[in-house]
């Protein structure tokens, strides 16, 4: 049979265990707002029984450790969705910037086409009015300026996206280095044990990393192995592999892995993937259509000019100048004519004829070699830009809802609940008080035993 000392021991163990649990609870409360913190739960285990000669008594309690409550599968889902959302957000914000250039605001290409069209119509009624001729030149300049502005807007968005590439790569490298360090710390924790706060920090960093680029994670003996979506290693155990950027032949930053391979086109997801997609796919698509429109329209208009005669009786000279490189047609288009008298209004060489105005107007409505009229070609571009912008923002919203759902689930598993911690606080407080009572009771009993048969008390 166990003596009073056994009870004392059990009491002390209970004090220890509940004190530890109170500490865990305090720590949970303290970290209620810490990002990435997962709540820790005190793990009580009962101690082995005391086997006396003919009796078995309980052996008390021990605090075997603190368990962080986390769901790694949810973390991985959140990381994947974060990658996609950041990619959509990057594209959406870039396209928001781009689409302002395609809004009918008086300075856009649609307004330019409209003003050129109506000034030609005006020339039809007053072919020899120099103010009407000047009007046609000014409208042409406005249209050329609208092409220039739109092309510059696209280039600016493209170069913004390009600047994000090296910045993001620097952030990725900094994160992978920290992750590798934490990985090697975790490698010293026995596999069966919980990584605790180190794991929290690691998960937090990996989630930040997934916001920058799409990653794939595998768990093995060395800790986590992180690669980009296409398999380029970023972290293996305690080692990290830096990405680099170099200026490519197209003048844009290319992403190069640690072996010197250019992996730019295979990067998907995250800010980096979104920026690269915008820079290399989305904007070049718009640019090429805009350049085709500018060059085909200017060519058609110039040949309509050549069909007529200007106010001095000369054959119409080119109205628009195009740069020699068709890839900069929209950014380089300008009005070649310097004097209102050079507009080829006349069809017979006499100054009062308006016979060629119909040809000039027809250049605005006739089908270009692309198969569309200038207005239709531009409408279709507006549709595509608008659709891409609304698509990216819809996608971002949809993923955002999914992500909120997943974060709620993660919160349900891992977040600190103040109410729960408060009840725990009361629970452990009560247990601690009771254990203290065991100690004081044993002390009283000890005194009683020592004073047995004695008339004076100690």
């Amino acid at each position: 049979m166990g003596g009073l000392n056994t009870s004392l021991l059990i009491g002390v163990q209970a004090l220890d265990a509940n004190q530890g649990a109170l500490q865990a609870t305090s720590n949970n409360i303290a970290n209620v707002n810490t990002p990435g913190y997962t709540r820790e739960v005190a793990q009580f285990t009962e101690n082995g029984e005391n086997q006396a000669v003919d009796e078995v008594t309980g052996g008390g309690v021990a605090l075997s450790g603190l368990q962080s409550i986390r769901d790694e599968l949810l973390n991985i889902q959140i990381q994947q969705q974060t990658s996609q959302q950041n990619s959509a957000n990057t594209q959406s914000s870039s396209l928001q910037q781009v689409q302002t250039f395609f809004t009918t605001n008086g300075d856009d290409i649609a307004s330019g086409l409209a003003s050129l069209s109506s000034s030609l119509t005006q020339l039809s009624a007053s072919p020899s009015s120099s103010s009407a001729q000047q009007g046609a030149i000014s409208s042409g300049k406005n249209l050329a300026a609208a092409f220039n502005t739109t092309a510059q807007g696209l280039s600016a968005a493209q170069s913004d996206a390009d600047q994000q590439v090296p910045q993001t790569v620097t952030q990725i490298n900094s994160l992978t280095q920290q992750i590798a360090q934490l990985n090697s710390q975790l490698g010293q924790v026995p596999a069966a044990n919980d990584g605790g706060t180190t794991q929290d920090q690691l998960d937090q960093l990996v989630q930040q990393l997934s916001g920058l680029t799409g990653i794939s994670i595998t768990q093995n003996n060395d800790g986590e192995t992180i690669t980009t979506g296409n398999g380029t290693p970023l972290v293996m155990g305690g080692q990290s592999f830096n990405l680099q950027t170099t200026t490519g032949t197209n003048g844009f930053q290319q992403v190069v892995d640690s072996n010197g391979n250019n992996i730019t086109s295979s990067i998907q997801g995250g800010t980096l993937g979104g920026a690269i997609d915008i820079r290399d796919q989305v904007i070049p698509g718009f640019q090429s259509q805009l350049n085709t429109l500018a060059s085909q329209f200017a060519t058609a208009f110039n040949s309509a000019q050549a069909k007529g005669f200007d106010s001095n009786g000369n054959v119409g000279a080119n109205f628009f100048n195009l740069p020699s490189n068709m890839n900069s047609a929209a950014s380089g288009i300008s009005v070649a004519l310097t004097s209102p008298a050079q507009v080829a209004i006349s069809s017979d060489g006499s100054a009062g004829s308006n016979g060629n105005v119909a040809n000039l107007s027809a250049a605005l409505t006739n089908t270009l070699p692309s198969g569309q009229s200038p207005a239709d070609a531009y409408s279709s571009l507006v549709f595509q830009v608008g659709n891409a912008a609304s698509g990216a923002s819809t996608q971002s919203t949809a993923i955002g809802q999914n992500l909120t759902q997943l974060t709620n689930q993660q919160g349900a598993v891992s977040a600190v609940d103040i109410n729960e911690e408060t009840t725990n606080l009361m629970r452990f407080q009560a247990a601690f008080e009771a254990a203290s009572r065991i100690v004081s009771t044993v002390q009283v009993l000890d005194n009683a035993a020592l004073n047995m048969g004695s008339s004076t008390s100690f």
Partner: protein
Amino acid sequence: MRIDPNLVPTILADLQQSQVSLNTALQEVSTGKSVNMPSDNPAAAADMVQNTIDTGDVDQYTQNVSSILSTVQTSSSVLSSVVTSLTQAVSLGTEGANGTNSTVNLQAIAAQVQGILSNVVSDANTSVAGSYLFGGTSTSTPYVADSTSSSGYTYSGNNDSNSVAVGDNLSVNVNVPGSQIFSDPTNNVLGSLSSLVTALKCGTSSDIATATSAVDSALSFVGQQQTVYGNAETQLNSQQTFLQQDTVTLSTQANNLVGVNLATAATDLSQAETDNSAALAAAAKVLPNSLLNYLSSPS
């Protein structure tokens, strides 16, 4: 099952959502447009490109109609005055041909007809805003005195005419070259007047009668040419009505594409305000709540 104890992200997301709705509704009401960016409605934004161009064109067509309508009306009234002059010349010719006039009288009549000829030439040289109504597409003065010509005047204009665009597929012929009105080979207005002057000055009664009948046939020829302007005027008036309707159609279309129904927008705005206040009120009620509020502090 445990639920997410952290309400803050959800509340913030809700607040943000209601703020977005509020901003959208506010923007719609304040701008009167439901499509402010292509992404608001890509198809409508694309359709607006054509609408913008068409609206500009219709505005300009309308201006063209009113400007050439005045030109056509002026031309028509000039021709009316020519008709009046010619009628006068015919009656003077008839008077001269009746064989009862003295030489002095005939000379006086000839001087009157000469005056009519000058008036007609001046009519033929009418210009509006720097361009000659009857000079074809040329900018030089149509009729200049030329002693070598039988009529005393040469035509320096050309034989072209301008058609002015007043619709996408409609252009109206707005001028008849002077060569077709005043110096037509068979019904030469100036020539016949000039011949009448010569006949009155030194011809027989029968010469005068012949010359008078030539003026008479030129008179009816001018009358025919006048109908060209009359027809153009009718065409322009009906086009003006069409363009007015087209303007309304285009602005209705623009309103349907990107405009906002103000009643709906106002309702949306007030709905968004209500939602936003509700979300804020809920946040204020829920956030400060915890078990701690109900526990007495440890004594």
